[in-house]
């Protein structure tokens, strides 16, 4: 294993990946209806371009980007637009969604032609294709990919990193993708490198996926792409931590990877980019891990966007006993959801069901000042101190103690022996601090 920098903090949770990592990706059968949310990314909500009763084909555009930081949404199958309505989303909010009645033919839209000569294509053309295909970061944050590929001229990019770390416990979607579509991962990497104009491409994979490391190392031979196995430690897959581990560069507080000349893309994003360019396929499906001890057949499925969680769970054989908690995403960073009546989105990397004994009860005990959260925090924050400030609604203090640098990785709450809801506190603080900043901005404008 090559030398690597040890990033600060981190924890070693049970990775829980054995439940689903051996299960090959299966295609989900076609459903009768899909509920496709419009706002699946970070940024401006896209503009609807279809009307009720309109016919669409698979991969056809349902909504177009409404600005630079926005993304298009495409039809998961061919059919008729039944209605546009407000639905509950995995994020806990509600938002507009297109309800699509499938016609069962699943006829593909030929709107985007394959760019077979991508190795000679202009970077602008490739970037436009990424916009047209509605590609967003598939690691979970769903930030529009084209924006990340458009750094200002003052921030030259020297390294492209593909994130195959998948440090989130229980999730195996990226692992299976690397094993089953290694060529697509590498093609995507080369396309992304061409768009950015960088020569150095590195793929980071944690050592608990030796098969993926070996396979990609072999396939990448001669391409100049360097595959690195990384000693396992959560949250290595967090952008800033991965950059530090692979390049030794530190992203400054409040900064972006481009500030240190790096762009990080998830391997799932690379596959989506490769398919958009070489096949002309828009982003209407993704690989999702459905797992947890209550699940009868945990595994990995290629789910179309708009598939209800309940239908997805049926694919995995349902549950053998009642789960205590349903999580959209993984156990460390995922969001608890209260209902299975929510649709799979571009960012849905996993659907996790937890048994009663897997769930920690928060008791609201006082901080005992042991400092374990400080040791665990990869962003060098003091979560215990922050949480006390936040409990007393001192968001002004929390701001000066860098609450906004929190990446919500959950290491502090994992390490806390008093079971304090530290991440919830920090999330609240981030929300309040942002609200205060917006209010101050509006005031200065007036």
């Amino acid at each position, binding site marked *: 294993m090559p030398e690597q920098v040890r990033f600060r903090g981190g924890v070693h949770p049970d990775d829980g990946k054995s439940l689903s990592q051996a299960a090959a990706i299966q295609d989900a059968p076609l459903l009768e209806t899909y509920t496709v949310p419009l706002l699946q990314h970070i940024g401006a909500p896209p503009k609807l371009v279809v009307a009720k009763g309109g016919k669409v084909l698979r991969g056809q555009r349902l909504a177009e980007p409404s600005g630079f930081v926005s993304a298009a949404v495409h039809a998961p199958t061919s059919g008729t637009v039944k209605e546009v309505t407000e639905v509950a989303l995995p994020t806990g*909010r509600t938002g507009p969604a297109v309800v699509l009645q499938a016609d069962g033919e699943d006829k593909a839209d030929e709107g985007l032609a394959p760019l077979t000569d991508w190795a000679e294509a202009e970077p602008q053309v490739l970037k436009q294709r990424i916009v047209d295909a509605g590609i967003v970061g598939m690691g979970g944050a769903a930030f529009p990919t084209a924006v990340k590929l458009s750094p200002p001229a003052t921030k030259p990019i020297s390294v492209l990193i593909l994130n195959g770390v998948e440090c989130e416990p229980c999730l195996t979607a990226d692992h299976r993708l690397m094993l089953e579509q290694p060529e697509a991962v590498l093609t995507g990497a080369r396309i992304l490198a061409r768009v950015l104009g960088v020569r150095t491409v590195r793929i980071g994979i944690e050592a608990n996926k030796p098969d993926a490391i070996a396979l990609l190392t072999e396939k990448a031979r001669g391409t100049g792409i360097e595959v690195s196995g990384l000693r396992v430690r959560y949250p290595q897959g967090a952008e800033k931590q991965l950059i530090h581990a692979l390049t030794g560069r530190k992203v400054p507080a409040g900064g972006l990877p481009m500030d240190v000349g790096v762009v990080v893309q998830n391997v799932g994003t690379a596959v989506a980019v490769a398919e958009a360019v070489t096949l002309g396929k828009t982003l209407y499906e993704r690989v999702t891990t459905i797992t947890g001890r209550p699940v009868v057949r945990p595994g990995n499925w290629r789910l179309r966007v708009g598939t209800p969680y309940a239908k997805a769970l049926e694919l995995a054989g349902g549950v053998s006993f009642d789960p205590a908690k349903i999580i959209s995403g993984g156990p460390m960073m995922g969001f608890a959801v*209260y209902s299975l009546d929510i649709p799979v989105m571009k960012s849905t990397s996993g659907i996790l069901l937890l048994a009663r004994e897997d769930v920690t009860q928060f008791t609201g005990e006082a901080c005992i000042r042991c400092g374990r959260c400080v040791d665990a925090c990869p962003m060098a924050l003091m979560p215990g101190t922050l949480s006390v400030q936040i409990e007393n609604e001192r968001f002004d203090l929390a701001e000066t103690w860098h609450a906004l640098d929190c990446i919500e990785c959950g290491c502090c709450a994992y390490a806390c022996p008093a079971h304090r809801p530290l991440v919830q506190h920090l999330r*609240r603080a981030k929300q309040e601090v942002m609200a205060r900043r917006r209010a101050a901005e509006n005031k200065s404008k007036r």
Partner: protein
Amino acid sequence: MNAQVLQAVWAVVLLTGTGTVLGLVVGIVVKLFGAEIDPRIEEIEGLLPGANCGGCGFAGCVAFAEALAHGKAEPTACPSNSAAAVERICALLGVAAGTRNPKVAVVLCGGDNAKARQAALYNGVVDCKDAMLVAGGAKGCRFGCLGLGTCARACPFAAIEITAAGIARVHREFCTGCGKCVAACPRNLIRLVPADAPVHVLCSSPEKGAAKRGVCEVACIGCRKCVKASGEDHITMNGFLAVVNYDNPPTAEVAAVCPTGCLVATTPPAETETADPAREMVHA
């Protein structure tokens, strides 16, 4: 006399001397340059609730008292003060008391734990704003009261209680209408209404009737019975939700027509000037 005693005596003499000299300097400076402070400010301040709720629009009770003394505010601008205290301030300032329509806060949700369904068990920070961060709140109704007491903690007069059934209720006799709770509620359920408003629709969900009934027994199902009984001027429909027109409220009898019991009649709060319990609670 040994050296230690001498040292102590010197210390006493030195400090007393310094104090006397400095005191004289301060006294002279005040006498020569000191500004006259309106003695009424302190007196007015004593007649204000002292909760610093900000309901008057000033930074606190002292700032409001100063504004009153300088004629920059009306005595009735304080929403929290008792009528008797306002009268005394008016007498002190020699101004006529304007009319004031006292307001009270009302939580426009009736779905307590017995009547409204919970979507899940919430186990986290006991605060509505924090609970909203977890999938938007654990209550079946996305618009209902979460009952975790953010408003009760914001109330400077301790007028809001989270009932045993898990819903926020305003004690009208203590509520002064300062509006702190209105700003605190993350679901925007609290509204300031005229204290003499006879009825309230205790529901804030704009969803369709069937959807609301699925999660709550006492939701407004949008049947319009109350609108027909009282007339469009008194109760208006906002989508599937009946809304009382507080500028022109209906009579209390209309509450009887509501099939779900979300239209509730209120009795005006008892006159509490003599006891002034709000202030006692604050200072207790």
